[in-house]
């Protein structure tokens, strides 16, 4: 993807420029093969809309979210204070991220430690780009397709953002169908609270299977996700149900890339 520009804050600073927004890529978006595709999709949209953005690159480090949810407040605050030092040194004002966990931590838990930024989830940011006419989509390719949206806990219940991703999906001209448990009642994918990094406790079912079954039962061809962890969990769930040929799990940003024909 050589055609896509991904400047770093350091490069910007060297040129004496301050970007409109910092794109916080997050660990998943940086290292996980599936999530990297989401990162690239979002970058395509940013470039298409002509957004002046930058990333921290090697200067970015984990927000500390999984450590905090696991109970390790020490490690969380070490990470937070280090990140805040870097963000403040670059005089960052606005941050956008495609990960609801990074989003929640940066937005809610950093201010108390001296990190005050306007933090947006990528679905919110993309919605403003569309509203301002900086980005436009043609929904044609999704005509007649059924899409169901899975609410990430850290976007939905944690921060009451339910409509921004849905507003984007309705622009696709697709048939947006809701699962029985959605919005406030949305069922977790099973990855939150540091569960992503451990085996589930003994039970009679995996949470991602429970959720994937519900999503598949809507008859949708696409499960729209807005979180790299949810994406992994639901992709695994769909595979376990041997439905990967009929049902795709895609991030909202990836769907927009398809719709814009990028």
């Amino acid at each position: 993807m050589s055609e896509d520009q991904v400047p770093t804050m350091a490069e910007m600073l060297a040129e004496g420029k301050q970007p409109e927004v910092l794109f916080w890529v997050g660990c998943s978006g940086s290292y996980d093969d599936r999530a990297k595709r989401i990162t690239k999709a979002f970058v395509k949209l940013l470039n298409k809309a002509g957004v002046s953005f930058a990333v921290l690159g090697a200067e970015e480090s984990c927000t500390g979210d999984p450590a905090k949810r696991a109970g390790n407040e020490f490690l969380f605050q070490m990470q937070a204070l280090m990140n805040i030092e870097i963000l403040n040194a670059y005089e960052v004002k606005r941050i956008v991220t495609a990960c609801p966990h990074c989003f929640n931590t940066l937005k809610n838990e950093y201010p108390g430690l001296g990190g005050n930024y306007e933090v947006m989830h990528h679905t919110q940011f993309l919605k403003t780009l569309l509203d301002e006419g900086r980005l436009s989509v043609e929904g044609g390719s999704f005509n007649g397709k059924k899409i169901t949206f899975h609410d990430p806990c850290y976007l939905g219940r944690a921060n009451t953002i339910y409509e921004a991703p849905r507003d984007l999906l309705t622009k696709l001209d697709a048939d947006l169908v809701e699962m029985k448990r959605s919005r406030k009642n949305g069922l977790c994918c099973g990855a939150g609270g540091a569960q992503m990094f451990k085996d589930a406790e003994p039970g009679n079912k995996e949470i991602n299977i429970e959720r994937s079954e519900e999503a598949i039962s809507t008859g949708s061809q696409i499960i729209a996700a807005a979180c790299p962890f949810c994406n992994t969990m639901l992709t695994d769930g769909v595979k376990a149900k041997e439905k990967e040929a009929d049902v795709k799990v895609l991030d909202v940003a990836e769907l927009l890339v398809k719709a814009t024909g990028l």
Partner: protein
Amino acid sequence: MEYVLRIFFAIILGIGVGYFWMNVRKLRRNILLGRDVNRSDRSNERWRNMALIALGQSKMVRRPVAGILHIFVYLGFVIINIEVLEIIIDGLFGTHRVFSFLGGFYGFLIGSFEILALLVLLSVITFLVRRNIIKIKRFIQSDLKGWPKRDANYILYFEVVLMSLFLLMNAADVWLNQMGVSHYQTDFASPIGSLVSPIFNGVPVATVVVLERTFWWLHITGILVFLNYLYFSKHLHILLAFPNTYFANLEPKGKFNNLDSVTKEVKLMMDPNADPFAAAPADAVPEKFGASDVQDLNWVQLLNAYTCTECGRCTSSCPANITGKKLSPRKIMMDTRDRLEEVGKNIDANKGEFVPDNKSLLNDYITPEELWACTSCNACVEECPVNIDPLSIIMDMRRFLVMEQSAAPQSLNAMMSNIENNAAPWPYNQQDRLNWKNEN
């Protein structure tokens, strides 16, 4: 004779209210065993939440059947209690239906009380059916075995009895009024009582008078007994729902508090000018991180525990519980309350001082397996009709496990050491963070 009855009534009332007040003070003391947390801010929002959620029952109707039936019972209880005021005045002063001077309005009031009482009766019977015949899952789960299940049924039986006594009392009154018995000359609309009153046909007037008095006495003593039962049951929510919704967390649900004690230490670690060998002040008590017992929780969390009425909406929406894990957010609240009661009794038995009993909320009540099953998804917090926050207790206990005992699951320790060493939860080099840019 009448004087004796009035004195007797005053004594019963005094004992009933006095014993309740004693327990309320105990309740307050137990709640204040918790750590301090400031919830005195944003009072307008707090009043609004209390009005909408506790008074207005707005979260109850998210499950419409239970929600609407609950509103009948709630309205019935609140409104019929206006009648209790009259009963107390009548009892103390030997009057009969002292508010009847309100005339037609009084008749209307009693009439609507009767209709409400019938609605309460029907709702409560439906609740009994849901619990014991339909056996809705959240009412028969393992955390409700034994006392909690009996407790729930006792409360419902109690309400059946109280409402029946109220209706029978009015029915007898109506019947005596029709028979022209002096002392029973108050006219009031009695849509339900007048339907029931024919059962007294053929019964001697004197007997019906005795029955009417008996229903009256049983009704008021029943109410006093019920009032005192609250403290020993899960039913305290009828009072505590109000302060609980007022003091509930107003921050976004995803925002977990940052521990100030940790911030101090981390800042010290990162400060190049700090003296690592500096002696701690002589009076410094090493701060405990996280919670292993009820005294480590804050008072709002303890208020939450007393407010919980064990409806189980939290547990029925918990992804871990739905998929068969041991975690039940309702059990977290029940355990917290049980342990708090145990600590309170310990204090009572030891002249106001807590004597260590080699037990704690962690392990003796709540196991690490339950705590590690939580996905922190906030479904339980969102569901709770009175804004209880089980997740905050789970998180505080995880903090104790990890920071005081280094007892995280092995895989989480690996994740955390990755973050420490390469700034990501996976073992990748931080220098490779931007590699995706050049990959296809």
